């Protein structure tokens, strides 16, 4: 089994290195093919491991070598394949494989084709390290690794210039990449602090040792550690207030959005909370905070998605919103449900993004859904895929999202947090609305793209075939819920609805369904038959507020970035040059000046010199007298 672990882990790495070899040469199809094959190998290995773990119930634990040994700190490169990590591994490698294949088609016109695969595979490798590590430091390696790969991939089209915020809310790919990296870094500091807290209280960063020790730790320590780790999770999973980078990250190529900013990397935060559940279950306050923040973000992000016109941004907001759901579940203690939603979400969200990628490919990178419409004629399959994914997202029964999302909402009720429940239900309705608003505006109604002279075409066939597993999973994944529960609760704490909730489960489900169907119906009514713009609505303050993302990016710019730049400038020009350095130079100048003054006594006139001698003699007397008087 150890061999499989290494294969699963290093196949993406090999793929990345292989692609990097050709990183600076022109497009070579085989690079993409080899990368995809290696990813597929990784997926197969992961799946085999999953079967193994499922079959035996044992985790596979390997320690490759020591990494950092200093003082009492021992950090190995250790990997653990247990129920949680194997789930993540399978999901990650599956989605990655599909995205790799997809990218062969999607990126076929890009001259940096090979480079793209190198980055993408590197990302998968980092993600695998993240999920497989058996200690927090290893997790942090992956954590930062995915951050860098995200930076590289978001800024993939680095050559685009910066434009104003009005023209493109993300300014430029490179800007968005930097924003993403820096925001994540802010959170990473929190994460590091969490690591430090654990290390100094437990003496180790190994999961097993830490989790064995946490029950004996002081409450404040636990709270601090949990909060610090969660701050780390907030960055990666783009929770408020560190959420702005996610929508800006849509500047990256769409496969990247599908893989990184929907299916895998952004869920790392959720993964962390699930992974560290022994810690979080001991800190109810922090957990409740997580749940509340998750719920808030779910609603908050959905509200922004309602009015957005950008195909990818809508999906990004929905990702954000769904991450909120996951955190809500994890915060409420339903870790396995969170994990399940994570997996299910990965499938349908990746599908949705890839579908959006098809549309973009067809529309020559046009993203404004107001400029689309009626695409179903040319893009039947894409319409189908996106439809399925949206149904799953909206939580329509028997699609994957139905099971997982319903369970989360149910949990909120079960925990007695009615407010959270209510918000989540409303959000579910909003989700359904914006998903179908987008689908209808894209595929139904009049063919608005014609006036822009675009001739859309369907994606390559092999790409569509490659997407099919995701579509299938988006439909059927929900039926594996019980088996999944059985599987992962060997490691994660089981979560059952109370008797009471269980009884009214169908009512709760119905309420959610009503909201979801209502949302779809509203979208149908408004957008199915083409775009009818409502000037009054679009000019209202709340519409503008939502469309501008509550002005948060602007606020950040005005109150953080600009003042920082200003203060930096002042620090340099005013403090460093005018005070610190000027003091040093001032001392030197003072000495020089003293020299200039003193040399005036050297008049060259002998008479003055003789007088100086006499003066000196008198001074001697004075000094002698004073010191004699003082000393005696």
């Amino acid at each position, binding site marked *: 089994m150890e061999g499989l672990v290494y294969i699963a882990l290093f196949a993406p790495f090999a793929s990345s290195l292989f692609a990097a070899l050709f990183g600076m040469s022109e497009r070579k199809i085989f690079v993409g093919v080899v990368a995809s094959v290696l990813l597929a190998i990784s997926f197969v290995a992961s799946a085999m491991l999953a079967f193994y773990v499922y079959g035996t119930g044992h985790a596979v634990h390997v320690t490759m070598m020591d990494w950092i040994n200093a003082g009492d700190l021992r950090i190995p490169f250790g990997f653990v394949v247990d129920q949680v990590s194997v789930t993540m591994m399978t999901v990650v490698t599956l989605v990655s494989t599909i995205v790799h294949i997809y990218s062969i088609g999607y990126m076929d016109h890009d001259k940096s084709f090979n480079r793209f695969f190198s980055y993408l595979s590197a990302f998968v490798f980092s993600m695998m390290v993240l999920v497989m590590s058996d200690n927090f430091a290893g997790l942090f390696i992956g954590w930062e690794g995915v951050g860098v790969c995200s930076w590289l991939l978001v800024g993939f089209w680095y050559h685009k210039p910066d434009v104003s915020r009005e023209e493109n809310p993300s300014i430029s790919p490179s800007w968005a990449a930097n924003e993403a990296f820096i925001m994540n870094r802010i959170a990473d500091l929190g994460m590091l602090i969490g690591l430090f807290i654990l290390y100094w209280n437990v003496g180790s960063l190994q999961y097993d040792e830490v989790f064995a020790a946490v029950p004996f730790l002081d409450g404040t320590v636990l709270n601090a550690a949990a909060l610090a780790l969660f701050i780390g999770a907030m960055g990666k999973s783009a929770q408020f207030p560190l959420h702005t980078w996610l929508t800006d990250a849509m500047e990256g190529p769409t496969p990247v959005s599908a893989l990184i900013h929907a299916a895998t990397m952004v869920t790392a935060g959720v993964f962390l909370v699930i992974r560290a559940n022994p810690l979080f279950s001991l800190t109810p306050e922090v957990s409740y905070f997580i749940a509340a923040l998750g719920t808030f973000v779910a609603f908050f992000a959905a509200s922004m998605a309602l009015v957005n016109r950008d195909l990818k941004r809508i999906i990004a907001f929905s990702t954000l919103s769904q991450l909120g759901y996951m955190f809500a579940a994890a915060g409420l203690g339903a870790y396995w449900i969170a994990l399940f939603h994570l997996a299910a979400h990965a499938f349908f969200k990746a599908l949705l993004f890839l579908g959006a990628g098809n549309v973009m490919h067809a529309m020559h990178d046009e993203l404004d859904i107001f400029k689309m419409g009626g695409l179903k004629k040319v893009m039947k399959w894409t319409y189908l895929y996106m439809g399925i994914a949206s149904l799953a997202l909206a939580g329509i029964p028997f699609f994957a999202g139905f099971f997982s999302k319903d369970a989360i909402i149910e949990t909120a009720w079960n925990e007695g947090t009615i407010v959270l429940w209510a918000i989540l239900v409303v959000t579910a309705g909003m989700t359904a609305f914006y998903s179908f608003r987008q689908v209808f505006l894209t595929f139904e109604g009049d063919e608005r793209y014609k006036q822009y002279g675009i001739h859309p075409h369907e994606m390559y066939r092999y790409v569509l075939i490659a997407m099919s597993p995701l579509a299938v999973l988006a439909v059927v994944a929900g039926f594996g819920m019980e088996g999944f529960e059985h599987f992962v609760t060997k490691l994660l704490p089981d979560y059952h609805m109370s008797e009471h909730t269980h009884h009214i489960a169908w009512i709760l489900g119905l309420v959610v369904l009503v909201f979801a169907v209502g949302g779809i119906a509203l979208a149908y009514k408004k957008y199915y038959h083409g775009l009818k713009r409502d000037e009054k609505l679009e000019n209202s303050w709340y519409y503008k507020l939502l469309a501008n993302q509550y002005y948060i990016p602007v606020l950040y710019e005005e109150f953080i970035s600009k003042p920082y730049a200003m203060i930096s400038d002042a620090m340099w020009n005013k403090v460093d040059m005018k005070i610190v350095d000027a003091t040093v130079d001032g001392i*030197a100048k003072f*000495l*020089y000046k*003293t*020299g*200039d003054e*003193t*040399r005036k*006594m*050297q008049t*060259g006139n*002998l008479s*003055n*010199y*003789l007088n*100086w*001698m006499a*003066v*000196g*003699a008198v*001074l*001697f*007397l004075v*000094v*002698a*007298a004073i*010191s*004699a008087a003082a*000393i*005696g």
Partner: protein
Amino acid sequence: MFEPIKVSLESLNLVTLAPMLIAIAGGLVILVLDLINSKLHKSLYVMLTILLLVVDFGATIGLNVNERGFFDVMLIDGISIISQLLIIVASILFTPLALTSKRFHEYSYPEFFALFLFMVAGFQFMVASDNLILIFVGLETASLSLYTLIALHNRSNSYEAAVKYFTMGALAAGFFAMGAAVVYALTGSIELYQVAQVLSARLGETGIMAAIFGSSVLLMVTLAFKLSLFPFHTWAPDVYEGASAPLAGYMAIVPKIAAFVVAIRIFGMYLDLGIEWVRVMILILAIVTMTLANVMALVQEDVKRMLAYSSISHAGFIMAALALDTTEGTTSIFLYYALFMFTNLGAFAMLWISRHKVRRFDARYDHPFSKFAGLVQIMPMGAVIMALFMLSLAGVPPFSVFWGKIYVMQAAVNAGYVWLAIVMGLNAAIAAYYYLKLVVYMFLKDPVKDVDTVYYNLSKPLMVVIGFAAVTTIAAIFYVQPLVSYLYYMISASGY
């Protein structure tokens, strides 16, 4: 009535006088030679002088420690021997500098060499006695010769320098004589060891302090003048500038060694008597001197003047060691001069080889900084050596002056004057600026003119002297140990 005066040669212990007598006799021989044949070349005189000085050196080094001679006016203790040795070594190094490739007027006179030898004898007398008369006579012999030597350089500036030095020296002589008179009035003796005895007995008397004030202030003025301490240093830059470069380098060392020995004898005595304000006076003098001379050196435009101020500052630096009144402190004075000697003479010799008859770079100065601009391109070896001397003067290890500095500072620390050591350190940092300035000019700037004549005055003997100075500057680390142990032994043997 009158007892016939019986003087046995043994009791005179004429050996103690031998070194000075050799020098004086040598001077006379040179004069006589000139009488016999006035067409002799200067190289003969130079070699003769060196030979005489070597003999002088031999005679000095053979002296027994702690002897008195010649009616007990000669005192051959440790410091007198080592200071004589230093004086002679410096003189030996100085003499070959006369053999420049260009003809300088003064060296063609045999009188120059005779005067030089008389001067050496004068300094030797000065250090080899604790009798104020002999000290005074030695001082004046040496000084008067020195004035003449300066004037012999035969340029308008050197006359000016000689007059300034002479006049101030005359005033200082008056002060010294008056100081001696006060001492005499106080104690009835001018032998320092007797003075010390009388004073220690009378220290408790009322009013005695005022007299001690008088004597110490008067004597201090003279010595401060000789040592070029602030504010009696005013002559030094002008005289250094006016004198020929080798002589200036020589003046920065030998007269000061002699004056330091006298200062040690006189003020060491006061300090031993427990007169604390003398120490305060010396410390203030030392600190003011090293600091102000440093800041004045910062703004100099002429290398020679800069070196003049720098040697004032060095004198202040060493003066501080005098205040410590410990064996280490006294050792550090001689160690410092022993190490400083080579570097300083080397630096002035470097100026000497670049000496022109006419001022080609600046109307006012002989050796403006701009003259040395880009020296590394014209004369790489010379620039490197000069830079070496500058770094050594700045106290960069492992060059010679560093070891002197560190020893002085260690002595200060050991005597409990940590703050003094810090002041010394900071001063060394300030001083580094002006030494670096020259290095910067030589290495980092481009030559101002296509001047091929910077090493105008170079000759083989000069190269030997400079090379020797360079080697001793670099290799100091290897001979500091024997030097220190010899100096320490001699000084502790003579009870300082």
